[in-house]
Every structure is written in structure tokens, then in C-alpha cells.
């Protein structure tokens, strides 16, 4: 793009020709910044890029110029030839007219004084740097002795500048295109791809954007899914809690009415109310746990859990409920304590659910037993058996399948293990434990929750 000095550089319409100005005497070092391309910026910062308003120093003071050569100064203008830099000179009307249909324009040589002005059109039209004005001077300076007297040698500087601008043009245009695509994609929830063809850094950047957009999109989708799940959860929870509360209110009313009419204590009603309270407590505990388990990365605070104490707690917790339903409940632990690594709240709730179901779906006069055993060295098993109606084999398979999905498991289905079993299954999975359902030798259901036992504690 750069033509040799002395040939004159013409605008693409040939109207504006740069000619010799002839003001520079030999030995005059007015412009000491004429480094050939590739030498990089001068160490003393002689080429001043215009600063935004209020920042940085203005151009060199006039006395510096007159005293012996000042560096060329660059000023940036938008395509309407306004500059954000308050120190930028107003563009001469002639220069403005010349740049309108040319890539490079300068004032004709009749311009008085030692100042040279060259206006360059950048390959882009947007932004504050669409036009660049270079102001040089031909005032003599000490460095001038090494430089040709002809100010025309200024041209290579500007030509290089212009060339760099032109070379950068396609890249800048691609960056602008990428920016526009990213903006559009962001407005559309990052659904549109932004990737540009090619194998340069900009294409690479665009692909990186796409990958980032995919992550953002997945996150958005996950958040929407969770929000939806939470809404359903609250709705279902309200229903789940309100139903037993209504039943409880009815039982209490029955008791009050009987008391008012002088009737004795109605044990059946008290038992039913007790069962509903137990059911409510279990629901709320399960819901709290379900919320934890529904998190995309369930937090599981693992610590050694004394399984004997766990069995004792669960059995004693359900005694009142069992007595109210006339079901005998007993637990058996080992002679030597067994421990496992687990989240004690989760494991206790899992076992509670199994025991709760065994009592709830048993008939009056029925039995439930909870056994802690060692089925094999290094393994500990929590077994819950009952002599209730049990569950047919095909229903067990279905329960296990559906139980893994809490949304389907929450309904009180007939034979109904519901949310409780689902939670037990998920807790087991989270702890690398197995949960097996089978037929107990006493006719009812047998559920085994088996996991690794921790090394016995040394006293």
C-alpha cells in the first residue's frame, strides 16, 4: 500500500495528490520520529495517541515544536469528524471534503507554515477511531541533519500507518461481526450460535464464545427446571401436608364432640389422630430431605454413624405410632457395635421410612421387626420385616423403578410406599448402599439396606 516517497500518494479517486512542500532544509531534524515500520514505538513516546477527554496530556506545547522538532501527533475522530479528544484540532473543511471519498487526504502544499496534516480513513466506520489525523511539523531540529530535507519522507510514516490500518481492517470487521453476533445471541437467551468460519484467533474466540454460551444455556435450563420443580414441590407439599392436617382436625373434632356429649375416650379416634401426627412429621422430614436430594449435587455430610444407636432411635420413635395401630414393633442390635460412614440424618430417615411404611400398611395385631446384622464380614445390614399384606413381585419391580423418581413416587398409591421408599432408595444410592425388597418369611415385606461397615473402633 505504501508508495515510495517522491512519487506522490494519490487518493483512490486521484483528486488529492500529496506534493513536496519544500520547507525542510537539509540538516533540519524537525521530525526525529521516522522509524521504519517494524521498529516499534519509540521509547520516549514521541508519537502521542490522543487520549480520551480529561485524560493524559494534550499535544506537546508549541514551544517544544518550535524549539527543535516535535513528533507527529495522532488524533482520532469518529466518521462525522468529531473527536472525543478536546485537544484534537477541528478538521479543516478542505480536508473533510477530501476524505469523504478517499482513504487518505492531505492539505495542499500552499498551506502556510511548517505543519503537515494527513487524514487517514480507517477501514471501519463505527466507533471513535474511524478517521485518524496525523499532525507533523517540518520545523528544524537537531535530528534533522540525518533526515532528508523533503517533508515528503513523512509519507512512509503515514503510509505505514494506513497500511497497518488496512491490514487490521478485516480483523476488526470480524471482531465487530462477532460482537454483533454475541449481542444478538445474548438477547435470544444464548440460543443462536456465534461461531465464525475460519481458523484464525477470532474464529477460535468465536468458538470459545459458543462453548461458553452452551454452558450458560445449560445453566439457564437447569435453573428453569429447578424452579419448575420447586413450584411443583411446594404445590405438592401443601397438598400432602394439608390432607393429614384435615384428617387430624376431623379426629380432634370427633373427640371434642364425644367429650361434650359425655362419652368416654374413643381410643380408635385417638389412635387415628396419633397416626396422622406421625404421618405429618414423616412427610415434613421427608420433604426437607427430598429438597436436599433434589439439589444437583446433594450435600452429604458423611461421618461415622453408630448403627445400634440409630436402630434404637428409629424403633423408639415409632413405638407410639405402632401401639396406636396395634402393631408390635421391636428392634435388635448386635452385641458388638457396628458403624458405617453415612449422613446420619439421611440414613436415619431412610430407615424411619421403611419402618413407618411397615407399620402403616400392616393390619392391627401385626408385627414389625428391625434387625441390625452382619451378613458378611465388613458388611452391615439394616433389615425391616413385617407380616403385613406384602407387595407382589411385579409391583416390587415397579416400585423400585418408579421409586427412583420422586415425582411419581410421592402420590399415596394403594399398597403405597410413596415418597418414603423413594427417599430410602435415593439415600441408599447416594451412600453406595443396596436396598432390596423381598418377601419376608412371615408373609409380609422384607427390606434390606446393606452397606460397608467401618473398622471397629479401638478402645
Amino acid at each position, binding site marked *: 500500500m505504501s508508495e515510495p516517497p517522491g512519487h506522490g500518494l494519490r487518493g483512490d479517486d486521484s483528486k488529492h495528490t500529496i506534493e513536496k512542500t519544500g520547507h525542510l532544509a537539509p540538516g533540519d531534524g524537525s521530525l526525529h520520529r521516522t522509524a521504519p515500520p517494524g521498529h516499534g514505538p519509540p521509547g520516549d513516546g514521541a508519537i502521542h495517541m490522543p487520549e480520551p477527554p480529561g485524560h493524559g496530556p494534550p499535544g506537546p506545547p508549541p514551544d517544544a515544536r518550535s524549539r527543535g522538532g516535535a513528533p507527529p501527533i495522532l488524533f482520532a475522530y469518529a466518521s462525522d469528524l468529531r473527536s472525543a479528544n478536546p485537544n484534537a484540532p477541528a478538521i479543516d473543511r478542505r480536508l473533510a471534503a477530501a476524505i469523504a471519498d478517499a482513504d487518505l487526504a492531505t492539505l495542499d502544499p500552499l498551506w502556510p507554515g511548517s505543519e503537515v496534516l494527513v487524514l487517514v480513513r480507517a477501514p471501519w466506520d463505527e466507533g471513535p477511531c474511524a478517521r485518524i489525523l496525523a499532525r507533523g511539523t517540518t520545523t528544524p531540529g537537531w535530528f534533522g541533519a540525518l533526515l532528508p530535507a523533503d517533508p515528503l519522507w513523512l509519507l512512509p510514516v503515514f503510509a505505514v500507518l494506513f497500511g497497518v490500518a488496512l491490514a487490521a481492517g478485516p480483523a476488526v470487521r470480524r471482531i465487530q461481526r462477532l460482537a454483533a453476533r454475541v449481542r444478538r445471541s445474548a438477547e435470544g437467551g444464548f440460543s443462536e450460535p456465534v461461531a465464525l468460519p475460519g481458523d484464525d484467533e477470532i474464529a477460535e474466540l468465536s468458538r470459545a464464545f459458543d462453548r461458553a454460551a452452551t454452558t450458560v444455556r445449560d445453566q439457564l435450563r437447569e435453573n428453569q427446571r429447578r424452579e419448575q420443580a420447586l413450584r411443583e414441590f411446594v404445590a405438592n407439599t401443601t397438598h400432602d401436608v394439608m390432607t393429614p392436617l384435615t384428617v387430624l382436625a376431623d379426629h380432634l373434632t370427633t373427640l371434642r364432640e364425644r367429650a361434650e356429649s359425655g362419652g368416654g375416650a374413643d381410643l380408635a379416634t385417638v389412635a387415628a389422630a396419633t397416626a396422622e*401426627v406421625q404421618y405429618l*412429621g414423616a412427610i415434613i*422430614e421427608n420433604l*426437607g*430431605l427430598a429438597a*436436599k436430594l433434589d439439589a444437583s449435587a446433594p450435600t452429604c*455430610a458423611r*461421618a461415622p454413624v453408630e448403627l445400634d*444407636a440409630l436402630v*434404637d*432411635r428409629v424403633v*423408639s*420413635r415409632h*413405638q*407410639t*405410632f405402632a*401401639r396406636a395401630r396395634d402393631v*408390635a414393633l*421391636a*428392634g*435388635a*442390635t*448386635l*452385641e458388638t457395635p457396628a458403624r458405617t460412614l453415612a*449422613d*446420619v*440424618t*439421611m440414613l436415619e430417615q431412610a430407615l424411619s421410612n421403611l419402618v413407618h411404611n411397615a407399620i402403616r400398611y400392616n393390619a392391627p395385631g401385626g*408385627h*414389625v*421387626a428391625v*434387625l441390625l*446384622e452382619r451378613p458378611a464380614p465388613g458388611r452391615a445390614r439394616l433389615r425391616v*420385616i*413385617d*407380616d403385613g399384606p406384602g407387595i407382589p413381585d411385579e409391583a416390587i419391580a415397579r416400585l423400585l423403578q418408579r421409586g427412583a423418581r420422586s415425582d411419581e413416587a410421592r402420590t399415596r398409591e394403594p399398597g403405597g410406599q410413596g415418597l418414603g421408599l423413594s427417599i430410602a432408595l435415593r439415600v441408599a444410592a447416594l451412600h453406595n448402599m443396596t436396598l432390596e425388597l423381598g418377601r*419376608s418369611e*412371615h408373609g409380609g415385606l422384607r427390606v434390606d439396606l446393606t452397606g460397608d461397615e467401618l473398622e471397629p473402633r479401638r478402645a
Partner: protein
Amino acid sequence: MNERILLIEDDPELGATVVARLRRAGYVATWWREGRHVTADDVRGVALVILDLMLPGVPGMELLRTLRACSEVPVLVLSARLDTGDKVHALRLGADDYMTKPFWPEELIERVRARLRRPALQRGDVIELGALRLDLAIPEVRVRGELVALTRAELRFLTALARRPGQAVTRASLAERVLDPEREATARALDVHASRLRKKRGDAVSIETVWGIGYRLERAP
């Protein structure tokens, strides 16, 4: 009985019901309505502390820490929280057990009793349970001082139950300890031993069948 229990619970209603329950169950209950700096003097003669973790004043965990520094009294922690961290932390700080709200009054009393009657394991050579006395060094079994003749298997059976009075012992565990694998292959043999034992030692101590588990020696009243 008349064991002393210290309840530290800020909720007035829950505190009042727990105190009433404990007194009805025969315990002497003291009630602190807030967390205080506890000293060894505070818990002298106290058989059990029931501690709520969420307390005004000195927080429950802090109280537990200072309590453990000056006393070995068993502590049953009450917690309304689902948080595993709290439970694990409380146990590490030396709590003996915890109970989550809501709980049934019977549950509370049962847990208190279970806590107070430890250690449950009878390890020595002599086991005394009410009218029943086993001396394993000889070995012999006496009911109200009267020698009872038992077979070796029956003695093993009774010993296994008597070591964990009040607790159900599984058939598998009993079979392992009692039965001779060459002669009594079936676990049904256990029922035979149990039935003979019941006849031999009269009504001094009752051997209960526990559904789905095995047998339990009821502790003496």
C-alpha cells in the same frame, strides 16, 4: 429411682410438658430456661442432662463443651434441626445421643430410661437379674437362691440373653452361641430350649419371644 434430670430448654410449653412427663415417670426434674455457664456443682448428683441446642444465653454447643470439660454426666441432645452437621458436632463434643423434635412423650421417657440404665452389657462372670443369678465361673444358675439344673445348651441360651437384659437377641446370634451345629442343625431347636427353660426357672425371669427377631430376657422389675 428418683434420679435427677436437668432439662435445659427455652420453649416454655415444651419445657413444661417435658418436666411434667419426667416427674410423672418418677424423676426429679430441674429446668433451666436458658443457656448458662455450667459448672461441676450444677450437675453434681444429676443423672442425665437433656439439652436443647437452640438456646438464648450460652448456646447449646458451648454449654455442651463446658459441661464435658467438668462432668461425665450423660447428655441427651434435643434438636429440631435436620442438619447432620449439628448432630455429628454434638456427638463429637460428647453428647451421648440426640432426639429430634417432634417426639412423643413415651419416646422421651423410653430414651431417658435407656440412657440411664447403661451399661446394658453384663460382662462379668456373675450376672444378677432380680431373682435370677448366673455364676458362669462354676457354672451354675440359681433362682431365689435355689439351684436350677440346666443342660449346657440351656445355660448358653440363658447366658446369651442375660448378657443383654431387656434387649431382643436374634435367632441367628443365639443359634451361633447355643446350638451344636452337628446335632441341632435347625434353628427350631432354639424354641425347644426356650420352652424347657421357661418351665425350669419358673416365673422369676420371663423369656419373651420377639416376633421376627428371636428372644428377650425381660429385666427384673
